[in-house]
């Protein structure tokens, strides 16, 4: 046997396995559930999570409406995944980094990025509307799973630099777990003990392909043990458990405990994008069933029962959402076209002779048209 080979006792291995059922702190009816080892967020946190979900949901429905009106080129809704996106974003510490995909707009808004900046990509004005370094947020990633490696690299760089107050959260979906980069990222993260947390939002579909055709694993969280990292299976429609588990994983990462793989079971209530027709691959009854497990409603019921939310607070929250939506509509009415000269500005640090030549030609074309 290879002398360098580690041996695991059964107990160590077992600790890396997920639970049989997804962890919950608040069940689908809004009732508190006992979950050993995981604490319910504080009252203050629960209220903040609920507020961010209501605002995130309103942002999402507004973005979908703007797409129907032709203001956005495309919008991949994350309605239904509100708890995953908000719970995860609010778990981030001040020096942590986030690596999102195109379906994580709600997470970006919850993370504090201006909704109008979030929509620059989908509006077609640019590829990324926010400042990556100022927001500690990678550009929304379209080639799925490729962002997992950027997250691992940044996390490893933080460790090499001696910054032990930095952890990285990367968001991916069930489809992305089939990509090779996810495998490489999980493996390298575990080998380097990089301070990174992988949150898989398993929303049941990769565009039209159901999860049953994506993976034969018992759960995606089971993949963790294969890399030597814990895999945690959680109810992705329970914002309390998402926040609690992601917070604990980020804390563990910062403390040098290495990476964690979290699978959050959730559901994409809308089609893949406005250009997709979900009736071709799933039953309306299935969607109706998941509507009864709506994460925002669950949180609302829970907070009302706990006395943390009253009519006045709900009304104020609705008003805040409407104000945010109105501001977004106004921002999207801005008809300013991007400057064609900007095409050449950031291909290289300094434009090459070839780019200067083409920029001059384009300027001539535009002058002739003027």
């Amino acid at each position, binding site marked *: 046997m290879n002398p360098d080979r580690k041996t695991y006792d059964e107990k160590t291995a077992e600790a890396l396995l997920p639970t049989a059922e997804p962890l919950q702190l608040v069940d689908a009816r809004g009732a508190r559930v006992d979950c050993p080892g995981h604490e319910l967020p504080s009252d203050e946190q629960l209220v903040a999570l609920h507020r961010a979900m209501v605002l995130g949901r309103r942002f999402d429905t507004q973005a979908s409406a703007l797409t129907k009106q032709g203001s956005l080129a495309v919008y991949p809704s994350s309605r239904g995944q509100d708890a995953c996106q908000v719970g995860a974003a609010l778990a981030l510490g001040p020096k942590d980094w986030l690596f999102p995909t195109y379906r994580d707009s709600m997470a970006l808004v919850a993370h504090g990025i201006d909704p109008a900046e979030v929509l620059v990509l989908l509006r077609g004005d640019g590829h990324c509307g926010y400042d*990556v370094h100022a927001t500690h947020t990678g550009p929304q990633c379209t080639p799925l799973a490729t962002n*997992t490696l*950027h997250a691992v690299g*940044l996390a490893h760089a933080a460790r090499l630099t001696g910054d032990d107050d930095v952890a990285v959260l990367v968001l991916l979906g069930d489809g992305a777990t089939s990509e090779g980069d996810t495998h490489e990222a999980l493996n390298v993260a575990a080998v380097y003990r990089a301070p990174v947390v992988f949150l898989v939002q398993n929303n049941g579909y990769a565009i039209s392909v159901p999860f049953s055709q994506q993976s034969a694993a018992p759960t995606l969280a089971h993949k963790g043990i294969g890399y030597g990292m814990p895999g945690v299976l959680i109810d992705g429609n329970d914002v309390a458990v998402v926040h609690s588990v992601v917070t604990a994983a980020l804390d563990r990462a910062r403390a040098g405990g290495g990476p964690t793989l979290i699978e959050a079971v959730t559901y994409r209530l809308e089609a893949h994008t406005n250009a997709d027709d979900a009736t071709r691959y799933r039953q309306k009854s299935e969607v109706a069933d998941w509507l009864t497990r709506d994460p925002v409603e669950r949180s609302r019921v829970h907070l009302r029962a706990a006395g943390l939310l009253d009519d006045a607070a709900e009304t104020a929250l609705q008003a805040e959402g409407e104000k945010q939506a109105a501001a977004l509509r106004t921002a999207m009415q801005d008809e300013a076209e991007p400057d064609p000269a900007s095409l050449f500005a950031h291909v290289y640090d300094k434009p090459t002779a070839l780019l200067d030549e083409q920029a001059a030609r384009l300027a001539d074309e535009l002058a002739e048209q003027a």
Partner: protein
Amino acid sequence: MTTATRTPSMTMAQALNTALRDALADDPSVLVFGEDVGPLGGVFRVTDGLQEQFGDTRVFDTPLAESAIVGTAIGMAMYGLRPVVEMQFDAFAYPAFEQVVSHLAKLRNRTRGGVSLPIVVRIPYGGGIGGVEHHSDSSEAYYTATPGLTVVSPGTPQDAYTLLRQAIACPDPVIFLEPKRRYWGKGAVDVADTGPGMDRAVIRREGASATILAYGPMVATALEAAELGVAEGYDLEVVDLRSLSPFDDETVSASVRKTGRAVVVHEAASFGGYGAEVAARVTERCFHHLEAPVARVTGLDVPYPPPKLEEHFLPNPERILDAVANLQWEREDRA
């Protein structure tokens, strides 16, 4: 000038090793990683002794995963480090292709200048060493066809040192193609020589009758052809492109306008190859100075052959001189 100490003769592999060593010593943000680059020193020994000198947090082995090597380098550069990564062989860089073209090349543009990626991807490339399949590809055109990448290839030990130092200092990602058949070729290396700039071509041999345009492994082959050509009555100029992207139109056009004839040489196949771009650019800029169409001498348009057949595949001085002979010579043109 103390040429005795400043310009020792070293192999190209040693020159690259020296460049990495000097860059690691000069800048604490420089990191070297890849497969087998640690205790082994790389399969071509280009990273020999670096881990010993700089420790295993600055020079380290990665899992066998090329996409991860480039993908994690991107994240590390976002955090302010300057990774220099090794792809073990040309064809083994392909798993990293998506990271290279979709992120490495585009991130500055996607973030409107917000994110710089000062990353060097070193790729030993090309044939001529009797490698079994997948060890001899000339993959330059995949990279030069991608806006946002800078692609360079040294043809001499001096350039191996100079260009690698410049690539590491460059704020943009650089694909650094190392001509593996020239790793063991020796030449003088002056570490203080900063060269003409990473984006410039240089004239390796002045001549009047035709211009041979070559880069990387074919620079030595072109120079050999030029020497053999003397006996056939040709006075050939050899231009070493050095930078494949961006392309030094100025130096190349000046040479071709002077000689009126051009042959571009590379190991990669001809169809859709880099030589097509060179021929087009030369034709666009020098049409009225050309006495003959720009000729190409390239590898055959077949998958890279097994070692016992590679001599038939690779361009050689004879094929270059054959191409020169077909450049529509009038008697008085010959030098």
